[in-house]
């Protein structure tokens, strides 16, 4: 994993924070000493429409500026996309990982998709309802992703994300606290790792 560029694709719906998740994750990876890229797919953007965003993470400077077609990991923020959007496109069953925000079990998702590769699930929406008070699955999914790919330390990730959120939500410490808890819980609760 050290030598190569690690590629991630995020699936969400407009407004769910797929872009923010990629940016936050990239920024957090940078704080652990990695080189990073984070970029959204820009098209017609509407609330609720399927959207994608991407990360590249590497221990070497990243030079590739083409699209990501064969990701190592795919993160699905909204389980209703499963079956609507080809979320496993380009994912190699023998080495790729699919992480889905869902209360369903790993086997149920596999069956639904007819996908033979590794699948992880985490109920990020419930976690975010319980910690942040709203269904904002993108931050908990960062925790699940960190656990699955294992190239970033959770402590560094939490510390960096906390710093960033504190800047953004200066007068609302409960939001910062909730998000940090959400990331930590998803890190612990993700199934199928």
């Amino acid at each position: 994993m050290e030598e190569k560029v690690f590629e991630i694709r995020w699936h969400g719906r407009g407004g769910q924070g797929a872009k923010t998740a990629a940016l936050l994750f990239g920024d957090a990876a940078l704080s652990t000493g990695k080189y990073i890229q984070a970029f959204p797919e820009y098209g017609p953007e509407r609330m609720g429409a399927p959207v994608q965003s991407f990360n590249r993470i590497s221990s070497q400077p990243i030079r590739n500026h083409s699209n990501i077609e064969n990701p190592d990991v795919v993160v699905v923020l909204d389980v209703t996309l499963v079956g609507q959007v080809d979320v496993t496109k380009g994912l190699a069953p023998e080495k790729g990982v699919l992480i889905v925000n869902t209360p369903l079990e790993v086997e149920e998702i596999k069956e639904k998709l007819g996908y033979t590769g590794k699948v992880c699930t985490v109920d990020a929406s419930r976690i975010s309802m319980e910690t942040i008070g709203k269904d904002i699955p993108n931050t908990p999914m960062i925790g699940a992703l960190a656990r699955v790919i294992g190239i970033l330390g959770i402590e560094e990730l939490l510390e960096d994300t906390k710093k960033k959120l504190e800047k953004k939500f200066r007068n609302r410490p409960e939001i910062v606290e909730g998000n940090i808890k959400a990331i930590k819980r998803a890190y612990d609760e993700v199934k199928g790792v």
Partner: protein
Amino acid sequence: MKVARTGNEAFAEAMRQINPDVVAAYPITPATEIVQIFSQFVADGLVKTEFVAVESEHSAMSACIGASAAGIRAMTGTSSQGLALMWEMLYIAAGLRLPIVMAVVNRALSSPINIHCDHSDTMGARDSGWIQLFSENVQEAYDNLIQAVRIAEHPDVKLPVMATTDGFILSHCLETLDILSDEDAQDFIGISPERPNLIKSLNEGSPITLGALDLQDYYFEHKRQAAEGMFNAKKVIPEIGKEFGKRFGREYGFFEEYQFVDAEVVILVMGSTAGTAKDIVDEMRKEGKKVGLLKLRVYRPFPAEELAKALKGKKAVGVMDRADGMSAFSGPLYPDICAALYDIDQGRPVIQNYIYGLGGRDIRKEDIRYIFEEIIKTAKTGKKDYTLKYIGVRE
């Protein structure tokens, strides 16, 4: 310090450190964020800049011209149709020898309407008298904009400079940026050299006319002087690039050679695609293929002699154009390269042209590998079967 910034954020940070006296701008995708972020810096009092929110890009450049003519630093940022709308003012900025610096995000021109990357917008400005610097990544975009101020204001140059990024590919891509401290950046940029004629004339009670009618008697002399500024820029740009390298460890010239010295075939490209091409060069090198890359950073002034010297003895060159010249011949970069290499007596490479990536069409490693394989074939026979191929288009 290593931070994560998008191309637009990096341009905005560079502008904050440059701290220009005037920024006049009008929003356009995908460049909007540059001046949007910068306007926040103005509102937060982080810069001393007078921010002029104008009603069009034509007015943005006009306001920059007015400000720069008063002897102060003026900057703006734009893209695509915005740059096209500035077109007549671009020539006026250069003709008046005003060192305006502009951040440009490369985006396709309409029609059909498209917000994604190609180089057709800046190609339309290539003969305007503006210096053009292209960037491979967010780091280079930032470094180029910092250096642009020094290049533009150099007393031997006094020409406007545009530094560019590839729309969305760089403008909206978060990358690792090694940002200079404000002190280092500002120390490198320095104080604007005095431009005595302008400052005295506009501000000290003896007004003069700028841009007056200039017919058969002097127009030619003035254009010749502007052209001399461009010739001088060829000396100044590498000097400043070297100084930047000495201070901050990243040296810049007219172009970067990658796996070049023993390369038999070479791809020549500008912008973000150069990074992707480096990856494929490494892959093909491992397969024992003598492939190399020449990434052109400075398109205007055009480093013809330097390119001829570098490319002499190569067997084949594939010139990648992210714009169509609409000439029934080639893209805009190709004829320039051919002209630069024409005078090579012995060892002139065979040159072919590949138009790619219009309107943001993805350029993949496989596409670049295909081009290498094509020019390897050409190198074997020493003759080309064709001049131009379109890469990645359905037809």
